[in-house]
């Protein structure tokens, strides 16, 4: 009995260490030298796993071969254009990675900082020891994270053997099927006679059919593996636990920057690589006349690549389009709509007076007018065709139909990584795109200058001024109503489950303050507020209407202070 227990505990113990043992064992088998350094070991195992992967992938070689051909042909330029350099493989770009913790960033930063002017290899599997000279702010952070890092390493190690075992089984299965395949092949070759060519024609079907059934388990295994990946993905996303530090900008005592100071500060920063940027721009500018030619031949041009393409397009416009009718659309403008683009065309280009019931009607008119008069010509420049306001299906459909007109020439720029997903085959053929890579590296000044696109420091000055202006045009009673709501809103700012002020309560409060005498007047006031986006209404689960102010608390406080001053 006692012995048995001991045995049991032994077994348990063995299991507990298994992770490392298995790892070492496998690494030994693979003929890879085991180092004492654990990190190094992890690296080796990684490599080893990769090797195994290569082997087990062989049986899918046939499938892959075709793909490779395709890639090789489509990627013919990969060798001679550095642009799509060696790391252009799709999988490498945004692949699944092992989970990372916030410590990594600080670490990388200190790494980069330690060697000014030099290059630091950026390898996820190496964790060099930190020297004492680490810059202060990151040192603290890094030190506190060491424990976490360790646990992370363990995590990685413990997951490996399982996968490894899985992969180890793959090659053996594969080799079986492979030999079967070749055997059947050679047999047939021996028996082949000159006369039965017809029979031979059937042969490939037969031979091909046989191995596929044997390949099945290997394939299944692969499927299992991918499904495992999928599970991992959802596992990682299902946990609401956020593994980042709790520090906030407020604690940092950073002065909030508004748009203007931001610009001023950025102007002070010395720009880098001026010569190179200029050269890059000149390269693009040499294409101008080619663009014009291709626009005239019925193509539309889309520019992509990192960096603002606004200046480039502006230069194109001022140098080549000065003498022709053209329309510039700032797609990044927060309240741009297709309607406003169509309005500009009908009202200002076509001098049409009148209104339209729907954008489709408007489009019909534009199409008709442009088809009737071939001498009419319009150049359409759209900065950021992929902006939030224009990326909708309907907007793109209308723009595509505009672009398909032979005498409307469209040249547009896109920036978002997923921008091409906006277009299906039909739209693409309407647009008739020609793609041009114009990486400029110039900062997106205009594009990000609008308040709502700045995510870090919402100064709220614009929101505040518009608040003040709108309220100034209202009656004192209306202002009082709004103030009441704002005060209530601020009182509840620390309550995370604050649903808003219910209409009935609000009405009661307003009555008590002698601001309204019946709920109809209050409703009229609220409609006014809603039109100016000062309030938002929301229906609660109990069907009661709740009122909210969609302005951040800081702005609201400022506003109330200002109001108090004015009084």
């Amino acid at each position: 009995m006692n012995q048995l227990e001991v045995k049991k505990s032994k077994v348990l113990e063995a299991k507990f260490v298994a992770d490392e043992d298995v790892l070492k064992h496998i690494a030994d088998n693979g003929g890879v030298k085991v180092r004492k350094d654990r990190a190094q070991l992890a690296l080796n195992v990684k490599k080893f796993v990769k090797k195994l992967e290569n082997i087990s992938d062989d049986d899918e070689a046939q499938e892959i071969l075709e793909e490779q051909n395709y890639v090789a042909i489509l990627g013919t330029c990969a060798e001679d254009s550095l642009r799509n350099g060696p790391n252009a493989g799709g999988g490498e770009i945004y692949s699944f990675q092992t989970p990372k913790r916030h410590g990594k960033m600080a670490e990388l930063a200190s790494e980069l900082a330690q060697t000014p002017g030099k290059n630091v290899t950026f390898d996820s599997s190496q964790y060099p020891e930190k020297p004492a000279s680490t810059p202060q702010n990151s040192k603290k952070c890094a030190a506190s994270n060491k424990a976490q890092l360790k646990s992370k390493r363990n995590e990685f190690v413990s997951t490996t053997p399982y996968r490894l075992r899985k992969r180890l089984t793959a090659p053996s299965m594969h080799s079986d099927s492979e030999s079967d395949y070749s055997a059947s092949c050679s047999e047939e070759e021996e028996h082949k006679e000159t006369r039965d060519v017809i029979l031979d024609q059937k042969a490939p079907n037969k031979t091909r059919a046989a191995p596929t059934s044997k390949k099945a388990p290997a394939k299944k295994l692969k499927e299992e593996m991918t499904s495992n990946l999928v599970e991992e993905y959802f596992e990682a996303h299902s946990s609401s636990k956020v593994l980042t530090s709790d520090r906030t900008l407020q604690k940092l005592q950073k002065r909030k920057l508004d748009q203007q100071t931001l610009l001023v500060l950025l102007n002070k920063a010395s720009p880098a690589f001026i010569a190179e940027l200029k050269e890059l721009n000149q390269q693009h500018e040499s294409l101008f006349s080619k663009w014009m030619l291709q626009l005239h031949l019925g193509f539309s041009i889309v520019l992509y690549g990192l960096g603002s393409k606004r200046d480039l397009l502006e230069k194109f416009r001022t140098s080549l389009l000065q003498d022709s009718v053209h329309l510039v659309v700032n797609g990044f403008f927060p309240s741009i709509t297709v309607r406003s683009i169509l309005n500009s065309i009908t009202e200002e280009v076509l001098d049409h007076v009148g209104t339209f019931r729907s954008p489709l009607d408007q489009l019909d008119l534009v199409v008709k007018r442009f088809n009737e008069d071939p001498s009419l010509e319009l150049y359409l420049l759209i900065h950021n065709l992929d902006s939030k306001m224009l990326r909708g299906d309907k907007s793109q459909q209308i723009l595509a139909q505009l672009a398909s007109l032979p005498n409307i020439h469209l040249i547009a720029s896109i920036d978002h990584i997923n921008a091409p997903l906006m277009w299906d085959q039909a739209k693409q053929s309407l647009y008739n795109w020609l793609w041009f890579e114009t990486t400029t590296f110039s900062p997106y000044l205009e594009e990000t200058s609008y308040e709502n696109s700045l995510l870090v420091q919402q100064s709220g000055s614009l929101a505040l001024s518009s608040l003040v202006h709108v309220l100034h045009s209202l009656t004192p009673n209306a202002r009082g109503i709004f103030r009441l709501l704002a005060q209530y809103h601020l009182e509840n700012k620390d309550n995370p489950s604050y649903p808003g002020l219910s209409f009935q309560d609000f009405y009661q409060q307003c009555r008590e303050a002698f601001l309204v005498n019946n709920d109809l007047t209050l409703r009229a006031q609220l409609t006014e507020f809603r039109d100016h986006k000062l309030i938002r209404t929301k229906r609660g689960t109990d069907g009661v209407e709740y009122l909210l102010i969609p302005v951040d608390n800081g702005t609201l406080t400022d506003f109330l202070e200002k109001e108090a001053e004015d009084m």
Partner: protein
Amino acid sequence: MRQSCRALDWGQGVPLPRDSGARGGSMSTCSVSKGCFVFKPNSKKRRISSTGDYFSEGKNDSEDSGLRFATCQLLWKQINSEMEKIQDELNKQLFDNLINFLRQSHSEFQTESTEWMCRMKSSEIPTAALVLGVNVTDHDLTFKSLSEVLQDSITPYVVSLQAKECPGIKHLLQKLMGQLMNCYVDVDDSEEEECVNISQKKMRCSMASLSQWYKDVTKKSGFETSSKKRTSSSRHWQSPPIVVIFKDMESFTTKVLQDFIVISSQHIHEIPLVLIFGIATSPMIIHRLLPHSVSSLLCIELFQSLSCKEHMATVIDKLLLTTQFPFKLSEKVLQVLINIFLYHDFSVQNFIKGFQLSVVEHFYSQPLSVLCCQLQEAKKRINSLSHNQCENIRSLPSFRRYVESQVSEKQIALLTEDNFLKEVTQTLLEDLNSYHENYFPVLRCLHVFTSSLPKYPLGKQIRELHCACLGKRVWETEEYGSAVQLMRMLAKAELVAILQKCVEIFTSSSGKQFSNTIEKMEEFLTRFQNLEAETNDIQDVSVSSQNELQKKTDLYHLQKTLLELKESKRSKKLTKFEMLRFEVVDFIESLVRSYLTPAEMQTLNEVVYFNTANTLREHLNAAPRIALHTALNNPYCYLKNQTLKSDVGCISNTAPDICIAYKLHLECGRLINLVDWLEAFSTVVTAVEGKDLDSTATDQMDEIIHARFIRAVSELELLGFIKPSKQKTDHVARLTWGGC
């Protein structure tokens, strides 16, 4: 009203320095109050610039650019018209069937026979389901020519509807009426009535008004046929049917379709309505979209259009495998175009677009493309070539190869005397021309052979064979070797059939030099016929040997004869058929070797072959994500500065801000703490700037770095790598994979 008010709100915010009113004649396109800017130059300043100007502009070595552009336009016009011809031919069968169907479906209405009454009772609408395949982009053209054909031959009342125009039944009826009224006006040619009709259409759009309108119109046209417009209306029947085409049936909302069908079936006895459904997937979709009660109101007949693969094969056959057009695509370019077709869209239209682009690119980038025209014309043009153009010829790689193979005196003459060069160029162009004349028939001939082989070692389609031959010496490839081996095993019947086909190909080709070849092949054919008579003799011989075997009873002799028999079997004497077959295959091989040489080996091939596949690929099949990724990860690719040079996977800390911020954010999980990010960022950046600054300067530095960080982060947001998150204060969420 409201919008202007909001604009005011924006405008009266902090008066930003860049906000200058764009309206007041200034040319700025920045404003915080509007996003669209129209620029209209004065009408006298307005320049009518021709496309040709841009062709010559921007090129420093604009040799003969005018002529080149004209040649390009002419060539493209020819190609385009050829394309249209092909399209029409391919669609002819389908359209004929459709027209027959339409005729039948409404002939009964015409005669008001009892049959129509029968159908009327059951209120079935005749419907054609047109299965067009997945290449949606090509459908438009098909529908366009279909409605033209219908308007020409059957009825003026053809309506095409698209799903996106008809979100509701009301819109559908509106569109229907609108288009009908317009085509009615086309017949009548009166402007005033159009206005009236349009205003009417807005008033009431119902099936009842439609039938009323139809009654009026048919009555009217009845009068007219009797009076003046006999010729124009006589094509159509007295009461032509109304054809409604649903271009993309799958995208229509089922409700709209069902309502329309139910309503119109009520009126089918008043208006002869015919529906045409354009279907991209399979005919089953009709039953999936429409419940039985609705689909039973339709009398559906199925029509299948030509598959896009066949279409493509014809296009390649007629456009590329012909000497009709001087312009040619090189192997790589063709591969790129075919791959886009096969792997991306199956769209013939896009293939043609790519072809057009390569024509334009060729004429734009190759100054010698001026010679890319018919041989006679090209010869004339050679004489008027400038000295620069002669130098261009001399610098062609293929021409240099040619020069090196000449004797030294001729070399000098070629490199110094323009006139001599021009003479030689003429003969070289002639050679190139005859190369093409020989190439295509031999290619087709080889394809006849290879397409009957098992496993198709050289490809099933002629385009694959074409690519193989264009790119390299085909006879040196492994696939060719196996193909020849298989060819040596062909059965007699097959071989004869193939040879006959080859003779046909050669006789139909224009090349005169193939008379010998044809003769030779015909000789083979007759020899094959003669073989049949001889086979009997061979059988006799074998029988006699068998007899001998039986005669000898002596053990020693038996052994000896058996050994002899074995010996003869090993070094098996070839039968006459086999000998002949070898001869045929050898002959074909000699043809291949002499005529199917790769195009790149031809002197002056650069004049007619477009071979920069890169440009084509970049413009048609771009990879914006990869460009973005490369720029962020490895800025040295674009900014050739030594400080940015780095190995794969690492980045210099002097890189642009956005690259550093990007690199740092890659290290994070799903959520990123902005404070941490900012600190990491400033650690990197201050390390570059140096630390020997006093405290006030450091403060300012901090501010600037803060600002730079804000810019980098908002740029990353614009690019779609992160988005603000409400899950935790001062956090942003990563949007790309890897953030798990």
